[in-house]
C-alpha cells in the first residue's frame, strides 16, 4: 500500500507540478517561495503517505497540504499584504499587472484560495471543499462572493 501511494504521489507530482506551483505562487505572491511550498508539501505527503487511506482522495488531500503550507509561509512572509498596499496606491500608474494583483490581493483568504483552486487547478467543488476544509455548499458561496467582489472592484477602478 505504501509503495502504491508513493507511486501515486509521484505520478501526481510529475503530471501536475506546474499547476501546484501556479496555485502556490498565487497564494504566496512569490515564485521562489512557491517552489519551496510545493516541495515541502510533497515531502510532507511522502512522509505521511500512510495516512492516505483512499487513493481516489489523493489529489484533494495533496491540495489541502499545499494550501496549508502556502498559507503558513505567506503569513510568515506577509508579502502579499505589502504588495497589495503598494500596488493599490500605484494602481493608476503601474499598469494592468499591478492593478490586477491588487484586485486579488484585497480579497479574503478563503475567497482567493477558492478562486485559485477553481481557475488554476480546475478542481470541482468537492475537491475544493476537501482542500479548504469547508463544505461544498460553502465553496459555491465563496466563489460567488469572490466574483462579486472582483466585479465591484473592477467597476470602481474603471470610474
Amino acid at each position: 500500500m505504501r509503495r502504491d501511494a508513493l507511486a501515486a504521489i509521484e505520478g501526481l507530482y510529475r503530471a501536475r507540478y506546474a499547476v501546484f506551483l501556479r496555485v502556490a505562487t498565487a497564494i504566496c505572491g512569490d515564485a521562489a517561495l512557491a517552489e519551496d511550498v510545493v516541495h515541502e508539501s510533497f515531502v510532507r505527503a511522502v512522509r505521511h503517505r500512510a495516512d492516505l487511506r483512499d487513493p481516489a482522495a489523493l489529489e484533494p488531500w495533496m491540495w489541502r497540504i499545499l494550501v496549508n503550507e502556502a498559507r503558513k509561509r505567506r503569513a510568515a512572509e506577509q508579502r502579499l499584504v505589502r504588495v497589495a498596499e503598494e500596488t493599490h496606491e500605484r494602481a493608476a500608474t503601474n499598469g494592468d499587472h499591478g492593478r490586477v494583483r491588487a484586485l486579488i490581493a484585497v480579497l479574503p483568504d478563503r475567497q482567493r484560495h477558492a478562486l485559485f483552486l477553481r481557475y488554476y487547478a480546475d478542481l470541482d467543488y468537492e475537491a475544493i471543499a476537501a482542500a479548504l476544509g469547508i463544505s461544498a455548499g460553502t465553496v459555491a458561496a465563496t466563489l460567488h462572493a469572490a466574483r462579486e467582489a472582483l466585479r465591484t472592484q473592477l467597476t470602481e477602478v474603471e470610474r
Partner: protein
Amino acid sequence: MIEQEVSKILDAAVPAPDGARGEWERVIRDAGLRRRRAWRLGPVLGLGAAVAAVAAVALLWPFRAEPDGVLERALAAVGDGPVLHVVFRGDWGGTLVDLETGARRPVHAEQEIWYDAERKLVHQIDRLGGAVQYERVSNPRQQPPELAALSREYRRALEAGTARVVGEGVVDGEPVYWLVYRSEMLPDVADDRLHEFAQQVAVSKETYKPVALRDTRDGKPGPSTGRRVLELETVSAEAADFTASGANVIDGMAYKEGREPIALEQARDVLGRRPVWLGREHAGLPLAEVTKTITAHGRQAQIELHGQSAADARECFEQLRPNARSRDDRPPEGRPEVCERARRAGRGLSMRDGRVYTHGPIRWERDRTGVALFYGMVGDDPSTYREDTIALFDQPHVSVAQSMQRLSVRSAPPGYVPPEGSVFVAAGGSGFLRRDGLFVSIQASTEDLVLSAARALEPMPG
C-alpha cells in the same frame, strides 16, 4: 461575462509556469525515504540483472510519465522462469599482440552465472577467450545479495512503477535507456553527508533487455562500477545448468610451488630440453638469477557426512544463517553444543543441495618443474635479518618462466593458450605465449618490456 473577466484577471495575475517540472528526486531525498537496501557490484561474483516477466502489466496510475512505455516493455523483455542465467563481460581480459606486425586485438573475459533463488544454488563459470578458467557450483548460506536483489528488485520496481527512466545513451554502439530501479540515501565518509546511491540498468531501445549495469552517486556513475551484460534470460529449473564439469572446477583445488636457485648451465637438464632466453642481458637489465621452479596441483576430497554428524551440521548452519528466525519470528536461541559437535565431526564443513561435506585429504598430482630467468637487480631482503639475495621486483625487471606443462608456469591463464607468434598481455601487465613448444610467462615492470622480451626470446645456445 464576469466568469471571463475573472479568468482574465487570474491569468494575468499569475501566468502558467510552462515547463516547470520540479525535482522529484529531491522530494524523495528530503523525505528521507529509504527504499530497499542498496547493493554494490561484487569484485568476484558477478551481478545478474534478472527480470522475470509478468504476462500482463497494466499501468497502475494514469499519471505515469515514462516515455513510450519503456518500463512495461523492459518488464516483458525476458522470460518468467525461476532461474536466472546471465553472462557478463569480465574485467580480467587482455590483449593479444601479434609479435611480427604488432597488431592488437582484445581477448575478452566472461563470467556466466546460473542462479536459482529458490534452491539457493549458484553456478559460476569464468572464461577467457572462450576457454574455461574457473568453475564453481555453490550453495551459499547467505544468498549473494547482489544476485538476490537483482532477481527480485528490478522486476518489482518495474511492476510497481518505482523504476524510472533517467536518461539515454549508447553502450557498445547500441542505443539504450538508463533506468534507476533502486536508490538509497547513505552517508559518504568523504564529506559525512548523505548522498543518493543508486543502481541503474541500461536496456536496449530495440529489445528492452538489459545490456549494462552501473552504480551512481547523486546521478553520476561511479568509477569502475560499470558492467556489460552480454546475455540475460530466465529459464525453468529443468533448463538450467548446475553441473560443474572439467578440470577447472575451483572447489577443492590445491596448489603448491617451490623455488631453488640453480646455475644457468643446469637449466637445460632441469627443463628436459633447451630453454629459451633473452641472452646475458635485455634492455640494459643483466641476467641476475636462475631458479628451478617446482609446482604441483591437487584436489582436496569432499567427504559426505551422514547420520548425526550431518544433522548437527545442518542445525549449526541454520543457527549461523544471517537473519535466522524461529517460527515465532524471534532470533534463534542457539545451541552452541550442536556447532561444537559438528566441528568435531570434520574440518571445513560445507553444505550443498542439502548435503553436508567435510574436507578429506588432498590428492596431489606429480610435481612439475620449470625454469625461471630473472633480468634486473638482486639485493638484500629487508624483511629478514640475515644477509640474503633476492630478486628486486620493485625495480625495472623482466622475469621469464618456462615449462613444458602449462600449469607449471605461474600466471598462465588456465585453459587459454594464445596462438603461436602472438603474446597475450593480461590486464595486470604480464605476458603469456607459446614458443618452440614451451609455455612461457613473462612478468616485467612495463608492458613495453613484456613485448620486447616476447620478441627477443630465442633458444639458449648449447
